[in-house]
């Protein structure tokens, strides 16, 4: 892809998504990647498959805006989305100085100096909404509300672009789309 003359440089962002098998990490990283493509941004992701998926630690790397390597180096991530609090200790090292941590945890999480940490009990929220499988979207909604989307320091894409990506995923609409959007809204409401 050649850059158009006069166009501002592509936003570049590196995101690490961390959780355990069954939490929907793969869905979340693909959703974000599709939002990037819809916004005209090149994207690279790296996923965990196979034995590791069986309840073990699952990590996805997402690099938006003109990279070659599919992997995020230690100290380079702008954002760490942790669907399990216990994984923060494992994957904290990916975060750049000044990076943001969004974590699914019942109480505040100490991620050390130089990290903007935001916690939400996405498990409890999702369970109370009768949607235990939607923890991933609850956390994403919370992240959008806390750090913003499409602005400096926030997620590379806007809330509207995420909604569009979710709608494309559940093309037929119906209850699955409504459930997914309400999980996102639940997270947004708790981050605002």
């Amino acid at each position, binding site marked *: 892809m050649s850059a158009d003359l006069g166009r501002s440089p592509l936003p570049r962002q590196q995101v690490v998504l961390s959780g*355990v*098998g*069954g939490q929907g990490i793969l869905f979340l990283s*693909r959703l974000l*990647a*599709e939002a*990037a*493509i819809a916004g*005209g941004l*090149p*994207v*690279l*992701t*790296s*996923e*965990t*498959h*196979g*034995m*590791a*998926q*069986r*309840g*073990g*630690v699952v990590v996805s790397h997402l690099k938006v805006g003109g*990279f*070659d*390597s*599919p*992997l*995020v*180096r*230690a*100290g380079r991530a702008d954002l760490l989305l942790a669907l*399990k609090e*216990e*994984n923060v200790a*494992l*994957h904290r*090292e*990916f975060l750049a100085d000044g990076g943001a941590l969004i974590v699914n945890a019942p109480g505040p999480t100490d991620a050390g100096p130089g990290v903007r940490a935001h916690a939400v009990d996405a*498990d409890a929220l*999702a*369970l109370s909404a009768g949607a*235990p499988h939607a*923890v991933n979207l609850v956390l994403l909604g919370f992240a959008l509300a806390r750090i913003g989307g499409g602005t400096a320091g926030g997620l590379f894409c806007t809330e509207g672009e995420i909604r569009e990506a979710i709608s494309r995923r559940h093309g037929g609409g119906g209850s699955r789309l409504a459930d997914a959007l309400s999980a996102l809204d639940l997270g947004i409401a708790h981050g605002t």
Partner: protein
Amino acid sequence: MSDRILMQGNDAIARGMVEAGCAVAASYPGTPASEILSSVDRWRKKCGATMHVEWAVNEKVALEIAYTAAITGLRAAVSMKQVGLNVASDPLLSAAYLGVTGGFLVVSADDPGPHSSQTEQDSRLLAMMAKVPVLDPASPSQAMALAGTGFDLSEAFGVPVMLRPTTRVCHASQDVDAPPFRPPVREARFVKDPARWAATPVYRRLLHDRLAEKIAAIAGWPATAPVRVTPDGSPAKAVVASGVAFSHARELFGELGMPGGIALYQVIQPYPLHAAFIEHLLETYEEILVLEESAPVIEMQIADRRRVRGRMTGAVPGTGELLPEIIAPILSRFAGLPEPVGALAAQGGGRRPTLCPGCAHRSSFYAIRKAAPDGIYPSDIGCYTLGINLGAVDTVLCMGAAVSQAAGFDYAHRLSGKQVDIVATIGDSTFYHAGIPPLIDAVVQGARFVLVILDNGTTAMTGNQPTPGTGIGAGGETTAAVDMEGLVRACGVRFCRTANPDRLPEFIALLKEALVHARERGVAVVIARQPCAMVAFAASGKTPGAIVITEECNGCRHCVDRFECPSLVFDEATNRVRIDEMTCTGCGVCVSVCPAGAIRRESAGEERS
């Protein structure tokens, strides 16, 4: 812009194959290659191509089927993981001599790390051994392009061509341009030539000469020649990289501020390495650093040992995945830059993988330990390897070895005058793949063991591909189905019984009966039949709140240590077990596991059966 879609590396390889007119595609699932074949079938449907697409019983059969199509003039491909290539190596080495008339692509996906494999072997070494050219993509989009290039190369020289992606290509995703396409169509036409297709050793010698000539010519083929990606500079040093290590290096060149004089080359065809390129490197550069996964295939072909640095010289670690964190200090050292600071991100640790909540394998393993507490437990490749967490897996070697190892344990102990209870476990897909010949062997030799076939009706670990027992094909079409009990009996087994392992008391009793038979009369087979939880609960839904822990829980830990369901959580604060409602399926097998009777079914829900 509208045609750009997110494509996983495996999906991109599949698209490249179908677009190039691949007519026959066969595979046996294995991480990280599993998604290729199901993707081939999706692209086939999308473009309306006429193809034969199949999940073969194993990689050897898959390769032979695809190869044969390629000697009728059709384009054909086989895909597998690297250890699958070991299984398929016999036909591959011979196919290299005989050659092909239509393009033949062998996709062998490597797993440096390894992340989900027994070994981190380099398929490119097997390509060298077989004398077939091998292509090494650095990204999903390049993998898609090289699938087409591979077919062209194969037909230009009449040889099989290997495409060798790695985990970081297969399971990377990228925005790729994917406009509609219409693949070319050919007609199968086999031209008889027994001196070639059925060559005797005398002819094989001639074919070997011809193959050597082809390889020499391929080392000059322009379309796969190495590419220099940095501008011209002072020719002192060069970095030569292939695969995803090239992608890491290219990004790091910018990030680390590598001096302009250092050249970066991408090798697309590691074997045979282009002869003119080797000459150019040695004429031009004082020092050459090679970055490649996993073996020093490129490095060993650069003849001047004094100027080459890499895996063989210790400049690059001799084993393991080349992560960007590992490459960064190597590049800095090579360029004479200060070493980058920064820790290595955690690669291991954390929660270990475990069998899913509601998985019937857990019941089988629990029952095996109850029935044969002092037994030896050979096992095999699949989800059920995780039975190691339950203390019910003692050995795992390779596909099908559970059966031969069970026999081997019996013969070894028999020599010492000992009889031990041996209970082997093997999955249904693995049994069909490589478990049948050793079962025949065990019957003939009079081995004494119990074989439990964990029949969940799917190849679960790799993403639930169908097995020969399901009667479902790669595209969801109806196929013939193999009768497992009939197959076991036809191998000569006299004790063959089928039961649902989730009915624990009955299943333990059946295993004890099988053990008596094994001790006195030889091999006994128990088929533990219950659908994979991933499939069953996706269809029927979970039943949250179905299972409760009562006041009677005394914190003995029996359920968490011996049954190890992730939905049973030991709460250190209360010294009692609680149910994780996020994951519990409500299967209720744990009810009969608790010695204190503290696990109960809350509702009057039906037991899963």
